[in-house]
């Protein structure tokens, strides 16, 4: 049978599959046909109807603002963009050698990384289900490469477990799975699950557990060939006279549980971390630069918006040059405002009381990242770690190894800290040099090579970033406020990662902008 051989519509075919084979089969068929998607990206906009030269003012040249500008101009609108910074991209940002970054308070960090090395202070991964970002990358020719999220040879570390020695992910992962599988197998064997598992399924479950948990023929998770084939050997498999391997000792269940290392086993199982995920070659700001190539001519840079006013059928933004200078104004028929609410709440505006209340109640998460450059890639050369992430209970939270340029002799940059919450607040409060010291102290507990190999570092505490005052927007009451924040207020629609259910993700910023553009266009063409 081929699709539509008898003129069957996709919808009726799906009902047939659903009726015969159940929801699971229907979902499988839907996925095959491209209907069941995890992002609500509905494909490229195709805005029909006359824009009638309508003027739109876009505030902010991050990904949301530039998406709006790009799509609106394509549909025939007259678009102007005001941006506070000297360049486009917003939080889609990369720091590399030659860059200089001045945070609030005036501390300046000059980045001295070698050619090709960089830190992405903001977004650093593109999930494979973030269709809008991926589509714009394809459209604008941004070259992507795999980002290694899970590396079984990276570490799990807890300063209170295994005498503070980092453990290989594969060992903890295999031991946890093995013990859990063995326990469940015992329960099945005791017929304790009869109410939940039929007799026929029980045998299948035993087969599955043996395979899943690397159990031996006695359904036990023990030191031996089965477990070592997953967790690694004490003496590795080889060739010639010394080729015979020796199994490694499994850790008892109690040791695994009390180590707390199981807490990070599932990080890569999260929907947005599942392999394969991507990064742009050369840094995340390649996406920002690609957008800027498309719409840069529409952007006024170094423009600090100080006032937003709605009068009759128009909206006017007053701005001053970021470095000081005379006030100027920009008037349009509509506005798409992507200014973070942390900033917008401090701008003199005339949004409704309802909107103002939502703007003022959204606060921005604390986050901290630090990149350290080392003389050589000791994680590869000494420890055979190629990309991926080690997790720790230390305030640095994780160490991410570069997913590119493996085996190069030159210096390499690690994402040496990525913190949230209480730890991040404290990193934000430290001066830059003290942050680097702290990160070196903590990282040395996992990689003792740190001090000897260290070259330089740069760090970003997001509450000290002058143009956003935080990392991403957190709703005081999303259930109650979200839809009201999407409503056109006067002549203005809000967009940005904060107006999405994918907060902090570039996909959320772009999807919110596409939605705003579609609704603005409907308003204009249906008027």
């Amino acid at each position, binding site marked *: 049978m081929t699709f539509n051989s008898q003129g069957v519509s996709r919808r009726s075919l799906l009902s047939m599959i659903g009726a015969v084979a159940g929801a699971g089969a229907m979902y499988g068929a839907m996925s095959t046909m491209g209907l069941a998607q995890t992002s609500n990206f509905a494909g490229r906009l195709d805005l029909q109807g006359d824009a009638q030269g309508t003027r739109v003012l876009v505030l902010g040249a991050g990904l949301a603002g530039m998406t709006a500008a790009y799509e609106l101009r394509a549909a025939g609108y007259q678009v102007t963009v005001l941006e506070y910074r000297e360049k486009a991209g917003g939080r889609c940002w990369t720091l590399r050698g030659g860059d200089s970054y001045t945070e609030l308070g005036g501390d300046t960090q000059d980045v001295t990384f070698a050619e090709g090395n960089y830190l992405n202070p903001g977004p650093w991964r593109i999930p494979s289900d973030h269709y809008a970002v991926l589509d714009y990358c394809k459209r604008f020719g941004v070259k992507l490469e795999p980002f290694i999220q899970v590396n079984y040879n990276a570490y799990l570390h807890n300063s209170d477990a295994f005498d503070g020695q980092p453990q290989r992910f594969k060992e903890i992962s295999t031991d946890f799975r093995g013990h859990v599988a063995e326990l469940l197998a015992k329960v099945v064997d005791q017929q304790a699950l009869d109410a939940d598992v039929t007799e026929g399924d029980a045998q299948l479950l035993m087969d599955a557990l043996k395979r899943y948990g690397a159990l031996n023929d006695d359904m036990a998770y023990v030191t031996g060939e089965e477990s070592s084939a997953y967790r690694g050997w004490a003496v590795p498999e080889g060739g010639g006279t010394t080729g015979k391997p020796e199994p490694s000792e499994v850790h008892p269940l109690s040791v695994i549980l009390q180590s707390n290392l199981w807490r990070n086993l599932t990080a890569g199982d999260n929907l947005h971390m599942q392999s394969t995920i991507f990064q742009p070659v050369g840094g995340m700001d390649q996406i920002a630069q690609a957008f800027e190539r498309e719409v840069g001519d529409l952007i006024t840079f170094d423009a600090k918006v100080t006032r937003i006013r709605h009068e009759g059928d128009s909206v006017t933004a007053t701005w001053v040059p970021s470095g000081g200078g005379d006030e100027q104004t920009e008037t349009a028929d509509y506005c798409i405002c992507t200014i973070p609410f942390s900033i917008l709440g401090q701008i003199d505006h005339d949004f409704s009381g309802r909107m103002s209340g939502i703007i003022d*109640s959204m606060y921005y998460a604390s986050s901290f990242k630090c990149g350290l450059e080392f003389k050589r890639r000791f994680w590869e050369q000494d420890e055979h770690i190629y990309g991926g992430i080690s997790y720790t209970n230390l305030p640095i939270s994780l160490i991410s190894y570069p997913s590119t340029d493996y085996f190069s002799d030159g210096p390499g940059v690690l994402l040496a800290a990525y913190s949230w919450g*209480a730890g991040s607040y404290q990193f934000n409060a430290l001066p830059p040099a003290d942050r680097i010291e702290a990160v070196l102290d903590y990282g040395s507990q996992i990689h003792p090579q740190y001090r000897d190999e260290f070259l330089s570092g740069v760090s970003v505490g997001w509450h000290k970033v*002058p143009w956003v005052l935080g990392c991403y927007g957190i709703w005081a009451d999303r259930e109650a406020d979200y839809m009201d924040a999407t409503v056109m207020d006067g002549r203005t629609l809000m967009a940005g990662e904060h107006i999405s259910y994918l907060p902090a993700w570039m996909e959320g910023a772009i999807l919110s902008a596409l939605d705003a553009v579609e609704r603005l266009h409907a308003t204009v063409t249906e008027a």
Partner: protein
Amino acid sequence: MNRIFMLTAAFAALTLPAAAQEAGEVVMIDRGGWFEDPSRLTQSGGQQVYEAICAACHMPDGEGAVGAGDYPALADNENLMTADYPIYLILQGQKAMPPLGGVLDDTQVADVVNYIRTSFGNDYAEDPATPDSVAAAR
């Protein structure tokens, strides 16, 4: 930054061999008592709490900062006349100020409120915040 430590370190620097000074030795903040709990701050004392969290945005001397938006100066700030206002802002947050009641306990909030009300040119020692008044405001 712990001021006693700073002074001590500054004095020590004076007595260091000239070579060490010329090498540009940077005095680091004493991080003892920092980062001890992943879910909350563990410093005690108003100044210590201020330096470990508030100073990031309001700056070490309470002068605030200006970017695309502002972090208000706490120095010479009449809004600190009563303790209730800073207590409310610290617990609930407002605009760019995140709510911090989850990472600070009642005593830490009271201590830091009393610290900022009597520092940076502020002289509001009357009716100080107490852990009880903070608890009541939660």
